[in-house]
């Protein structure tokens, strides 16, 4: 039973990271109809920004402070990368979906190549506090402290995004824009500004996801291609949850994290089943789409 509980907690933590990766993607596609294949890049750049800042500050600051600064750097790094991408590239391609796909894929490949050239293919280590590498005993179950951090981050972002979308004028604009962006403009609202903000928020969440994925699931290591690995699961979460629905993304991320964790543990050790966790996620996607083509809480496709 304790193994099952530990697996469940680990799956929920993985789901929290998937949610962070997917929430921005969902908003960007839901509002702007933009298939942003550079979203994985925002995750990678967020993680690299965290590594860069944390390793260039004096070690005397202590690991907890450095990690706190790294968290902020990952958010700002992802937000800056996403904001620049929207302003310099995406804004000029609104009515050209094929160009959006090609350009965002190209941007991802180019920047990942630059990272490989600049930092090498070896993974880089982000300094984390000692307690994050330890576990806490709750009842009879040992739960990794790093998982608590991921879970806490996911919950904070979910609550903050729900509040932002429900209570602020920008949030109302974004929700209205998901339904009918032309009519939002016809009310005198500058939708372009909301678009840029959506990209920046999505990038910030992606940057945070990039760092937390490194810390929680990659042994504190940052690598140039980690965002691309995470992106495929983010897309799956967005589709299962329903385009443009933050709550849908949260539920889908939990499902994906749990299914992946359970199947990896219970079936992945059998010969030939090493990738069963990934396969199970794709099967989950197929089942949900067959049952509910618009996703769990999404708008009609």
């Amino acid at each position, binding site marked *: 039973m304790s193994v099952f509980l530990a697996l469940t907690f680990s799956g929920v933590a993985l789901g929290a990271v998937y949610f962070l990766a997917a929430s921005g993607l969902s908003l960007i596609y839901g509002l702007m109809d933009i298939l942003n294949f550079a979203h994985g890049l925002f995750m990678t750049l967020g993680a690299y920004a965290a590594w860069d800042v944390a390793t260039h500050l004096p070690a005397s600051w202590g690991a907890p402070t450095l990690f706190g600064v790294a968290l902020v750097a990952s958010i700002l790094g992802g937000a800056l990368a996403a904001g620049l991408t929207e302003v310099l590239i995406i804004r000029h391609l609104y009515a050209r979906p094929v160009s959006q796909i090609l350009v965002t894929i190209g941007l991802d490949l180019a920047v990942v190549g630059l990272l490989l050239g600049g930092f090498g293919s070896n993974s880089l280590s982000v300094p984390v506090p000692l307690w994050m590498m330890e576990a806490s005993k709750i009842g009879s179950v040992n739960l990794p402290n790093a998982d608590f951090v991921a879970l806490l981050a996911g919950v904070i972002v979910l609550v903050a995004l729900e509040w932002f979308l429900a209570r602020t*004028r920008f949030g*109302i*604009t974004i*929700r*209205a824009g*998901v*339904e*009918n962006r*032309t*009519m*939002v*403009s*016809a*009310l*005198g*609202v*500058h*939708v*372009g500004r909301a678009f840029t903000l959506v990209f920046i928020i999505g990038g910030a969440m992606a940057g945070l996801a990039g760092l937390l994925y490194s810390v929680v699931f990659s042994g504190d290591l940052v690598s140039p291609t980690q965002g691309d690995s995470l992106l495929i699961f983010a897309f799956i979460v967005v589709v299962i949850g329903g385009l443009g629905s933050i709550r849908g993304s949260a539920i889908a991320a939990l499902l994906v994290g749990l299914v992946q964790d359970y199947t990896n543990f219970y079936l992945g050790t059998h010969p030939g089943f090493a990738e069963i966790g990934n396969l199970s996620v794709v099967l989950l996607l197929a089942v949900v789409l067959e049952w509910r083509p618009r996703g769990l809480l999404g708008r009609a496709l």
Partner: protein
Amino acid sequence: MNAVEVRELSVTLGGSHVLQGVTFDVPAGGVTALLGRNGVGKTTTLRALLGMVERRGEVRLLGTDTAGLATHRVVRLGVGYVPEDRDVFSGLSVEENLRLAEQRSDPLYDEVFALFPELKERARQRAGTLSGGQQQMVAIARVLLNGWPLLLVDEPSKGLAPLLVSDLADVLERVAERSTILLVEQNLALIKRLASRVIVLDHGEVIHTGSSAELADESLARRFLGVTSGA
């Protein structure tokens, strides 16, 4: 002074020439009706004035040349738009629909709720669950909040029960005391009651402008305009 000046306005949609060199003026004040059979380009004309479709030609609204202006900037000149199918945001509450439309620091909620007290009672209700008439109230309230001097109103009576059309006419009559209204409408009775001037479109061109009194000959109105007597 004219509230609207349109010169040689042309719009092509999907390879079809919907508007072909449309030219007309709308004098400031009162209601001017834009008439014509279904599919002659009335809605496209309103959308073109707001820059919602690609267009050629000159459009001056409230004295300003709108060439190159994005739709939201055209609206901020003081132009309110009530679309044909209301286009309320169904997932947003009534309150949020109105809040989204606020473009001035002191939105005219007192005035709006005096005209539509039901909207105050239903502030928390999702707009998608409202009846057609209630959604029309939201659509009109969104532009009244800002006290815009020019309103483009597209078939407001469409799908409404006769009693509601009468209420709608009362509201538009009061609004017209302060704002210029360019009204697209198929309901002949409503046009006769509200409009002082008519512009008639056919095959993407203006074929007649004149006084609404000319519509007294109903057979003429039906034959050339495709409008029906009602409410």
